[in-house]
């Protein structure tokens, strides 16, 4: 298990007071996690001692910056068990990773009448890029439905994967239900049907061990900012053969090999997909975040989330009128969305904030999911490595107080 008190001392923000005398209880890690001092200092240190542009420089700083930036890529590759760091492409966030695939692979491989399979629980990031592509190409999007408990209807998948299906793109962990989807099984179903599989790991990467070789997925994307790392960076993993065959996405410096006024040839992987000066400090910060999580052990991170989620689901079940959506703790990551009868999620968030408790309220970029449930929004508390049972108790107490304000 995790040593939570020690972990808490790594996160400087946890020592701040939201209002005088009101310490922060941060239950919004699924939107963006807090950063341990190890990550903040890695970037600070980079800017103070090593900062320089990478890849084309011969001077000492540029060499050091390049080494640190590429070493971070190698760490991330190991973190997901990618066979080769060249298969790890830096992007700005999960969203850009998926857009890269939709633009580069999608424009080259999707034709009129082809099918794209998604699920009804996708985040907009794994929905809208495909809608844009499908509209442009005259392709068809199909959706795997979810069941009342917030898990996917797995029995529906085989029939939805037809010979026209070119790609099955789905989330590993739902950012609303918290559902952990059976990635390996879904990838296999896609492959059996002759489709490739893309995994949105934005919520999985922070919370559980990832293994792209075991999953055998063709693409996977996630963001640093949800896993102790900085904003402005994420990665797209892709199998080498696919990446090699794809045209570049954005064009400019670094991704080219030779440029003449008549045309250009592309650089090798991974740089073919990285145009312009990269997010260098952010790459280094991402590497430090991976070190930090490895230090904790992803198995332990996962176990702690399960423990806290279990505790939270029990505690929340005692609040009258509160309805948690999604499956039991054993099938979910540390994300718990709920409604409270008679109080709108915005008002819950606002009232909880006065007690220093940060949660999200809204559609969490999953409007179709909410639409199917017949609601516009939910309140969402999400837990991470620093979350304690005392914090959950305070959450529950604050919900009771909110009900009082609303005379419920």
């Amino acid at each position, binding site marked *: 298990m995790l040593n939570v008190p020690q972990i808490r001392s790594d996160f400087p923000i946890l020592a701040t007071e939201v*209002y005088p005398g*009101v310490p922060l209880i941060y239950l919004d890690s699924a939107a963006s996690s807090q950063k341990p001092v190890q990550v903040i200092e890695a970037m600070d240190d980079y800017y103070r001692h090593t900062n320089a542009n990478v890849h084309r420089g011969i001077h000492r700083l540029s060499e050091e910056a390049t080494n640190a930036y590429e070493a971070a890529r190698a760490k991330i590759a190991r973190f997901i068990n990618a066979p080769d760091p060249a298969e790890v492409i830096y992007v700005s966030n999960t969203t850009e990773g998926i857009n890269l695939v939709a633009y580069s692979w999608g424009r080259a491989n999707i034709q009129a009448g082809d099918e794209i399979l998604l699920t009804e629980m996708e985040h907009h990031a794994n929905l809208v890029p495909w809608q844009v592509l499908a509209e442009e190409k005259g392709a068809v999007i199909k959706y795997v439905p979810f069941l009342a408990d917030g898990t996917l209807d797995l029995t529906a998948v085989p029939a939805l994967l037809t010979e026209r299906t070119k790609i099955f793109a789905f989330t590993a962990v739902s950012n609303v239900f918290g559902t952990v989807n059976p990635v390996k099984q879904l990838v296999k179903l896609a492959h059996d049907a002759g489709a490739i599989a893309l995994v949105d790991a934005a919520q999985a990467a922070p919370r559980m061990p990832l293994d792209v070789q075991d999953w055998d997925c063709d693409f996977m994307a996630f963001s640093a900012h949800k896993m102790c790392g900085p904003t402005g960076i994420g990665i797209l993993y892709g199998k080498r053969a696919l990446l090699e065959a794809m045209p570049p996405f954005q064009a400019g410096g670094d991704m080219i090999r030779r440029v003449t006024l008549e045309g250009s040839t592309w650089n090798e992987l991974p740089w073919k997909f990285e145009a312009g000066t990269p997010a260098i400090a952010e790459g280094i910060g991402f590497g430090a975040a991976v070190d930090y999580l490895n230090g904790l052990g992803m198995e332990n991170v996962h176990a702690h989330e399960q423990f806290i989620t279990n505790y939270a689901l029990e505690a929340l079940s005692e609040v009258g009128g509160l309805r948690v959506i999604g499956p039991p703790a054993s099938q979910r990551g540390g994300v718990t969305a709920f409604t409270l009868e008679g109080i709108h999620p*915005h008002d819950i968030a*606002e009232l909880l904030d006065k*007690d220093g408790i940060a949660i999200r309220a809204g*559609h969490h970029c999953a409007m179709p999911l909410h639409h199917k449930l017949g609601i*516009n*929004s939910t309140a969402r508390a999400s837990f991470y490595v620093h979350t304690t049972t005392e914090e959950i108790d305070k959450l529950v107490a604050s919900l009771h107080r909110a009900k009082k*304000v609303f*005379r419920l």
Partner: protein
Amino acid sequence: MLDESMYREQIIDLYQNPLNYGHLEDADWTYEEDNPLCGDVIEVDVKLDENGRVADIAWSGDGCAISQASASLLTDAVKGLTLEEVRNFSKEELLEMIGVPLSMARVKCALLSLKVLKAGAYGMPDPKSLHQHIDDEA
């Protein structure tokens, strides 16, 4: 420490017992829009009298206490106003009527009903041509 200043009695009252809630059968215009923050939607129906003043108004939709209380207060306040006066109804006026301190994000909630009302009002032809239009149809 719970600071409830945003949730004064009046706001909770209006949330739980909204004014002018519902639909108008014979509205001159109907407009709806959502709050991108949360997906909440508000619809406003307006009926003008022969002088181009708001004769009746109703609103519907789902939302937080602030947006709902605001819609109640706003729809009450614009009864009897001309199209022109509705178009010029200021944000400040509405916020003052609500009268509780709001954060930036919640200001959007508070102003949603006004946005919907004004967007509808601007979409309307000005009174003369409106009546012409109605005459034309008759």
